């Protein structure tokens, strides 16, 4: 009796697993794919080539990427327990500044152009309002870079709240840096440093 029950349970599970592996391209993957294709199209756009068009290109990429990112969630997660201490105005300012910092950090690397990296969609997992999409970026030299998009369902939309590249989480990286700064000095000092990075000519590595 119990055995039969168990067997049926395992069988259903197997079917579910099989169904999951047959069609991994669910909604989150589709959304990531769309955003990625859009960015590649912008990078490949011949009318946006040349150094004088860089600004426009960056703006367009930012627009395409913005729709996919839960900026508030990302900022909240990076500030972690310091987020609660901030007023709504401070939060809004932080979200903007942090977005700018990421733009500077990552778009600087991207805007030189697209050099034929392939994006393979590995798999997707959805659990309640959380989802994750795993992607493999293959460079021209055949180096594989695993990237994981961690997503949150907001209404009907899936938004990214963290990106893990080569197993290193973006949120965790900044969370540690920020909490380090905040535990030694003040919030205004952190803002000061963020502003310096965003506006300064120094590049961030």
């Amino acid at each position, binding site marked *: 009796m119990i055995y039969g029950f168990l067997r049926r349970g395992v069988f259903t599970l197997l079917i579910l697993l099989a169904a999951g592996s047959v069609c991994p391209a669910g909604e989150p993957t589709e959304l990531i794919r769309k955003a990625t294709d859009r960015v590649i199209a912008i990078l490949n756009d011949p009318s946006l080539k040349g150094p004088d068009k860089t600004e426009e290109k960056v703006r367009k990429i930012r627009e395409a990427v913005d729709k996919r990112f839960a900026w508030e969630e990302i900022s909240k997660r990076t500030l972690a327990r310091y987020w609660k201490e901030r007023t709504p105005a401070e939060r809004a300012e932080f979200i903007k500044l942090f977005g700018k910092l990421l733009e500077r950090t990552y778009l600087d690397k991207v805007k030189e152009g697209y050099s034929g990296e392939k994006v393979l969609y590995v798999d997707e997992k959805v659990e309640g309002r959380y989802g994750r999409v795993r992607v493999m970026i293959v460079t*021209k*030299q055949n180096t594989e870079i695993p990237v994981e998009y961690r997503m949150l369902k907001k209404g009907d939309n899936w938004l990214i709240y963290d990106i893990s590249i080569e197993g290193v989480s973006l*949120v965790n990286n900044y969370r540690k840096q920020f909490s380090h700064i905040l535990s030694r000095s003040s919030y205004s000092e952190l803002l000061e440093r963020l502003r310096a990075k965003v506006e300064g000519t120094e590049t961030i590595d």
Partner: protein
Amino acid sequence: MKKFDLELAVGLFIIMGILCLGYLSIKLGKMEILGNRGYELEAVFADSGGLKVGSSVMIAGVEVGRVKEIALDDYQAKVVLNIREGLKIQEDAIASIKTKGLIGEKYVEITPGGAEETIQPGGRIRDTQSAVDFEELISNYVFGKL
């Protein structure tokens, strides 16, 4: 009469010695006799990098628990952590596997989040970061990384 006292003293001394030995082995072996206090959380890592049962769980370098169990689940490492009683872990906390020093032992570090909700006992730390593989990093460096 006198002989009896001597034997009693020796017996007591030996019992005391055995008790001390027992205490030491429990302390040094980091065992717990009366069940584990605290509660359990689960975290799934793509690579546990040789984490062991009994490894520490730390927040800001302070030990807040231990690894209770490591199992393979869907070709990933499912790690059960025993967290100190009364310590709340937020829903958006991140668990990562770290190495003490360059080649030291592995431990789990939790970076606390800022969410209002906390993870209930038996729940899961959703966001994890696997052990950094130095070999992989070096090979990326040698063969060129983009």
